[in-house]
């Protein structure tokens, strides 16, 4: 682990803690407040401070210390959580985020950050009056009294700990200074005694300045928990040998420690005695009993209070407080039920499973040929499990959109405050799952749309009152599935888009002719033009005309599209339509002119036999129970010619005779797709076709069939668009000759 890796861990963790702080603050802002929340937020601040201290990021430590202190007082009910405090805390959290992002040197170089630092500390001052309370408590000396064979404290919580530190020899190379750990320990309590062991020092010829030869035995007096002390060494625990014993641990534990260390036993024992962790008597007693190999339970130990733990008679296992730190860490991460995985590893796994599924399908085909019932049955079972594995693996990539939506709470709150508006954010469909990559790329577009809606869409409190609306404006973020797509809808109940104003502005900018006839949708799409803004004045939130073009570009990069609907005085809605890439899709396998296609199941209404229906007046339209349904022929739209001689032989019907019609729905429209053959339902993995085929409309991706053949997945909205475009070209006679 290099320093960069460790720092990276710090950043990631700090980010998580900052996020959790924000969530707690948002809840508090809504009026909730209980001890758990206060504990949560305190712990977050405390952990950030602690970790920053280890890296010597003093700017973070000093600021966070004050924040932590205020939170601690709130936790102790010394101060009340009030609106003002929450506001300041929000700012402090943001400031901490800025602090985490810069190094100490950068901080010292940035006057603005320092000024912020000072301002916020001043703002916190009213709540932080008893600033030194905590540190005082920690550093207050307690006379440790001797109790039998060990030093324990009486009448105070302060406990004695013995820390035996054998840091990895690479410690310095990894950018860790042992001194900073010791410094940090002294912030947890008082270091009573420290012995530096230099036995490992080589002669000058073999000395390497970057290798750590020092070992430490430390006696620490602190009311910190074992976990807190362990956390000090979080970043070095991997290859270091660290033993932490409470003063109430038994002599045998100390003896075990002495044995474990390479140094001379007698000398180490002397050191322990010097540290005050062991008394000479106890040591000798222990040694005697060890020599005798006497296994009778240590009566002394039985009487010890072991930090509330029941003392086991067994000497070696439970009663020992020395704990393998790595093990601890594992337990900790499982507590959160989350593990972090490199996304490349995940992709690799999914690719492998993709291959497994295809192999499985091949085996299934082969086993059917053998007509061996036992084999077929076994393969069926295999099939069942492979599908489950595939589903599970694919679901790893999917994340609920909720976390992204949640982040907007803060944005909406701050923006509303800045604009003097009263806005309520409603979140729907937070558990709708999207591909992880998409979620990441949606943040920016959503931010722009939300800001725009708040700035331009929702009216001021007065205007809403005048219009007879609820003074609290509503902004809704919703996610749901529709026809094989995922829809993210952002809607508000504001004033709607001013069509007249958009038109004027577009004419002014020369985007459209003054006499152009535009549909509402076309008109609204003008706002995606770079530099387009109807705002009469530029605010610091929006109106500069950058933003909406970014929205469109980002969404299109995700192969999605945006629809806008708006009604003056009632509100607007932005609908982002996204494909389900890399999700498994439930599809319907069809064939046309020997080419395999998959129609997303979600778009299909029904399948009918075309032979039973007559075209209406020679057009590609049929009458289906009174409705006129236009249809397109796959072989025509994709200019397919039967390529496999095999298919020609099997399929005696000339390709011009269409047989089956799949009725699909897209948005509010219904259309038919004429194909040669229906092959039934199929569940497949979407394989993107790659950048070369980006311009190919109507095909959203590819998929592998059981026999290894490739099928194309149809993108129904695009396909219909393509059909309409072709029709226009044909009518105007500008049809380009295909080469």
């Amino acid at each position, binding site marked *: 682990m290099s320093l960069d890796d460790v720092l990276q861990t710090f950043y990631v963790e700090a980010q998580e803690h900052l996020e959790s702080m924000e969530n707690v603050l948002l809840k508090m802002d809504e009026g909730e407040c209980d001890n758990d929340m206060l504990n949560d937020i305190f712990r977050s601040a405390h952990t950030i401070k602690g970790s920053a201290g280890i890296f010597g990021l003093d700017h973070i430590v000093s600021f966070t210390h004050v924040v932590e202190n205020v939170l601690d007082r709130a936790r102790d009910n010394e101060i009340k959580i009030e609106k003002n405090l929450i506001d300041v805390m929000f700012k402090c959290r943001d400031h901490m985020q800025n602090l985490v992002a810069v190094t100490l040197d950068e901080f010292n170089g940035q006057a603005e950050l320092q000024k912020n630092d000072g301002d916020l500390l001043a703002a916190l001052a009213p709540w932080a009056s008893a600033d030194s309370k905590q540190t005082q408590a920690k550093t207050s000396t307690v006379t440790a009294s001797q109790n039998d064979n060990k030093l324990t404290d009486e009448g105070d919580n302060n406990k004695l700990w013995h820390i035996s530190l054998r840091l990895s020899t690479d410690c310095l190379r990894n950018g860790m200074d042992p001194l900073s750990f010791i410094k940090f320990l002294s912030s947890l309590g008082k270091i009573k005694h420290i012995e530096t062991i230099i036995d490992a020092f080589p002669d000058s010829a073999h000395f390497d300045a970057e290798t750590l030869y020092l070992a430490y035995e430390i006696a620490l007096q602190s009311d910190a928990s074992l976990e807190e002390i362990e956390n000090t060494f979080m970043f070095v625990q991997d290859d270091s040998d660290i033993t932490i014993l409470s003063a109430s641990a038994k002599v045998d534990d100390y003896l075990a420690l002495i044995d474990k260390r390479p140094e001379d036993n007698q000398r180490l024992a002397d050191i322990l005695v010097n540290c005050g962790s062991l008394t000479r008597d106890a040591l000798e007693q222990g040694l005697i009993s060890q020599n005798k190999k006497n296994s009778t339970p240590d009566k002394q130990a039985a009487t010890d209070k072991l930090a509330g733990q029941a003392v086991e008679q067994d000497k070696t296992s439970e009663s020992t407080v020395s704990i393998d730190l790595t093990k601890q860490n594992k337990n900790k991460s499982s507590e959160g039920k989350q593990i972090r995985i490199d996304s490349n590893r995940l992709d690799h796994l999914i690719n492998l499973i993709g291959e497994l599924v295809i192999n499985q399908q091949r085996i299934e085909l082969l086993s059917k040929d053998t007509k061996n019932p036992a084999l077929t049955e076994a393969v069926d079972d295999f099939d069942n499990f492979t599908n489950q594995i595939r589903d599970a693996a694919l679901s790893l990539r999917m994340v609920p959109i909720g976390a992204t939506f949640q982040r907007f709470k803060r944005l909406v709150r701050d923006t509303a405050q800045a604009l003097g508006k009263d806005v309520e954010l409603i979140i729907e469909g937070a558990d709708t799952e999207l591909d992880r990559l998409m979620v990441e790329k949606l943040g920016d577009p959503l931010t722009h749309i939300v800001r725009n809606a708040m700035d331009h869409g929702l009216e001021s409190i007065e205007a809403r009152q005048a219009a007879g609306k609820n003074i609290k404006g509503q902004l809704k973020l919703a996610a749901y599935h529709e026809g094989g797509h995922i829809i993210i809808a952002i809607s508000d109940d504001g004033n709607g888009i001013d069509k007249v104003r958009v038109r004027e502005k577009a004419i002014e900018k020369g985007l459209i002719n003054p006499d152009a006839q535009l549909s509402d949708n076309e008109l609204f799409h003008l706002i995606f033009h770079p530099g387009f803004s109807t705002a009469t004045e530029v605010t610091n939130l929006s109106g500069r005309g950058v933003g909406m073009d970014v929205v469109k570009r980002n969404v299109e990069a995700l192969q999605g599209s945006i629809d806008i609907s708006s009604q003056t005085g009632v509100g607007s809605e932005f609908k982002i339509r996204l494909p389900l890439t890399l999700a498994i899709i439930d599809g319907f396998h069809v064939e046309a002119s020997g080419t395999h296609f998959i129609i997303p199941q979600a778009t299909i209404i029904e399948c009918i036999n075309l032979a039973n229906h007559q075209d209406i007046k020679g057009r590609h339209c049929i009458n289906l129970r009174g409705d006129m349904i236009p249809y397109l022929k796959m072989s025509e739209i994709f*200019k397919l010619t039967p390529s496999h001689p095999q298919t020609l032989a099997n399929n005696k019907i000339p390709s011009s005779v269409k047989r089956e019609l799949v009725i699909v729905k897209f948005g509010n429209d219904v259309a038919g797709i004429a194909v040669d053959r229906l092959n039934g339902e199929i569940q497949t993995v979407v*394989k993107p*076709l*790659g950048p070369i*085929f*980006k311009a*190919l*409309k109507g095909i959203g991706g590819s998929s592998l069939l059981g026999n290894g053949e490739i099928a194309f997945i149809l993108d129904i909205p695009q396909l219909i668009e393509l059909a309409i475009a072709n029709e226009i070209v044909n009518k105007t006679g500008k049809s*380009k000759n295909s*080469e």
Partner: protein
Amino acid sequence: MNNMPINRQEHDNSEDTMVDKTSQFLTFTIAGEHFGMDLHQTREIIEYAGITKVPLMPKFISGVINLRGEVVPVIDLSVRLGRKPITIHKRTCVIVIELHTSEQYCVLGLLADAVNEVIDISASDIEEAPAFGAKIRAEFIQGIAKKDGEFIVLLDAEKTLSPRELAHLVEAELQ
């Protein structure tokens, strides 16, 4: 399946400074012409076992194949170099190449009549492409090497098969 490391440094040197280093090239034949491609960029050679045509594509895209679960586009290099489409026969093979450009990582298949051998060519034996006469766009050619009295056209795969340019060509075809 694993990525093959590509020694870009060596490649660059041979192009720019003509340091006398040898590079390995995979040579293959299309319609009697010999071509070579930097071995680092080739991943494997497979037998031609049918291809799935992609609708509406220009002729230089033969289609896609299923390469152990990966859908890989196959290019008819012959068309791309301005010649007649390749004739498929029993020994036709697909050379699978990997392109790591600054923009993206891309796997492509190339149709060839036959794959010959892997040869070492020292940088000093590579001559610059003639400005004309090769009947191939000069920028596609990395250089010309001579082996056993035959000329081998060393192709610059990144230029010849740039995914970005191929995508533009597809777009133009579809309009």
